[in-house]
């Protein structure tokens, strides 16, 4: 069997039987979540249909302005999403550090990945540029959100330890080393865990998609390995930049702890 089996409208509609089954179960169990499930399914359908048409259009035009514009849009939403994901209040300086770390870390990784690892030509080929940028930015956003949350919580919960170290003449870097390292570890952990389970516990989405499209599993794994390494690099780079510059936002120019309240 070669190529992909096209799914017709009727067959696609047949997949909604799973939604019907779920609605039946929750109705029977008296779980009042019908509205949320329907909204989620509807949103997923509409969003993907729109995305599909938009991508067809974008791939046809294939212009560098479009690639850069979409990259900027993805970065913008990733920054906004990070701010809303972090539950603790973020100070203004840390917000700037988060934005700069995310944009610089992901952009550097994307450029390296597309030009050196894939050897993309032209460099803005939207079919590659957009999905790869999306995966790198999405994972980095998750990492930086976790890292920022840990950093803020650590600076608040372990304030006495930081202050105690400062009293002894420690530099802010030394006084916050434990907190910074914890934040970094917490941020890269999900990426590490997903790498450990990959190929055994689950088939990653990109690889599964490629295989379904008729690509050889051997080519698919090459892409998957490369993108996982790219994601790991980008997450590490963005989180490291965030924690490295982020802890400094908790101190003033006299190297005193700022009031965060």
């Amino acid at each position, binding site marked *: 069997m070669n190529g992909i089996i096209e799914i017709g409208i009727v067959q696609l509609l047949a997949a909604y039987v799973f939604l019907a089954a779920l609605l039946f179960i929750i109705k029977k169990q008296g779980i009042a979540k019908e509205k949320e499930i329907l909204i989620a399914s509807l949103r997923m359908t509409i969003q993907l249909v729109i995305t599909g048409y938009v991508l067809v259009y974008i791939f046809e035009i294939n212009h560098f302005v479009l690639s850069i514009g979409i990259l900027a849009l993805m970065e913008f939403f990733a920054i906004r999403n990070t701010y809303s994901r972090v539950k603790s209040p973020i100070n203004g300086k840390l917000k700037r550090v988060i934005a700069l770390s995310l944009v610089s870390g992901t952009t550097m990784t994307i450029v390296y990945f597309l030009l050196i690892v894939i050897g993309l030509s032209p460099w803005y080929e939207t079919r590659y540029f957009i999905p790869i940028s999306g995966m790198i930015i999405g994972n980095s956003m998750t990492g930086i959100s976790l890292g920022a949350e840990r950093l803020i919580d650590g600076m608040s919960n372990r304030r006495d330890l930081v202050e105690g*170290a400062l009293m002894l003449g420690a530099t802010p870097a030394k006084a916050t080393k434990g907190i910074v390292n914890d934040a970094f570890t917490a941020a890269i952990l999900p990426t590490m865990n997903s790498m450990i389970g990959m190929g055994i516990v689950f088939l990653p989405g990109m690889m599964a998609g490629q295989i379904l499209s008729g690509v050889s599993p051997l080519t698919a794994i090459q892409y998957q390995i490369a993108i996982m390494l790219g994601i790991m690099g980008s997450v590490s780079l963005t989180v490291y930049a965030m924690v490295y510059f982020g802890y400094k936002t908790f101190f003033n120019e*006299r190297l005193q702890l700022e009031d965060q309240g």
Partner: protein
Amino acid sequence: MFSLKNVAFRDIIEIGYLVIPENKVTCIVGESGSGKTTLLKLLNNLISPDKGDILHQDKRLEEFDPIELRRRVVMLPQVPVIFPGTIRKNLLMGIELSDREPVEDRVLVSHLKGAKVDKDLDSDASKLSGGEKQRLALCRITLMKPEVLLLDEPSSALDDGTEELIIESMVSFARKESKTLVMVTHSKRIARTYGEYIVSMDKGKVVQVEEVNLDERDH
């Protein structure tokens, strides 16, 4: 020597003029909320005054490198900070954090012994009692041998017997090594017994400064 001129910090402290002499034991007394701890934090550069000047050896604190200043003027908080790890790690923490020369185990052991902490260097510091933690924190700063020691209620977690012993050893350390010791205490008795200079504070203001004649007191 420290001198404070028209120093104010929020609505906690308002000091017109105060001198803290060099190589002497100064005790700061006053009720809770009188601004004693805030005064120590100002001297340690943990916070800066909203207005006024604090001078150390005739130089404004702002002119010092903040880290360098804290390494010379070390503060011990009222609730001792115990870092995760062993007693050895905690004792060496001040030396390590302030980039001083490492100290041998035998020196650490003799300091612990002097502070009546009868524990192995490899024991977990978090398992110590409140009083032992306070004495461990005191050992940590004496090992650093800073120019000025700022102690915030150093005997708050100690029983009467140990309190006397520890304060006495801190005071004799300061005198022997010619250090400036500034000690916040709620106990007028401790201030009278050990202070050469007693500063009384009330509602953020200095209400009385007394110089004690050691010869008269010791006889």
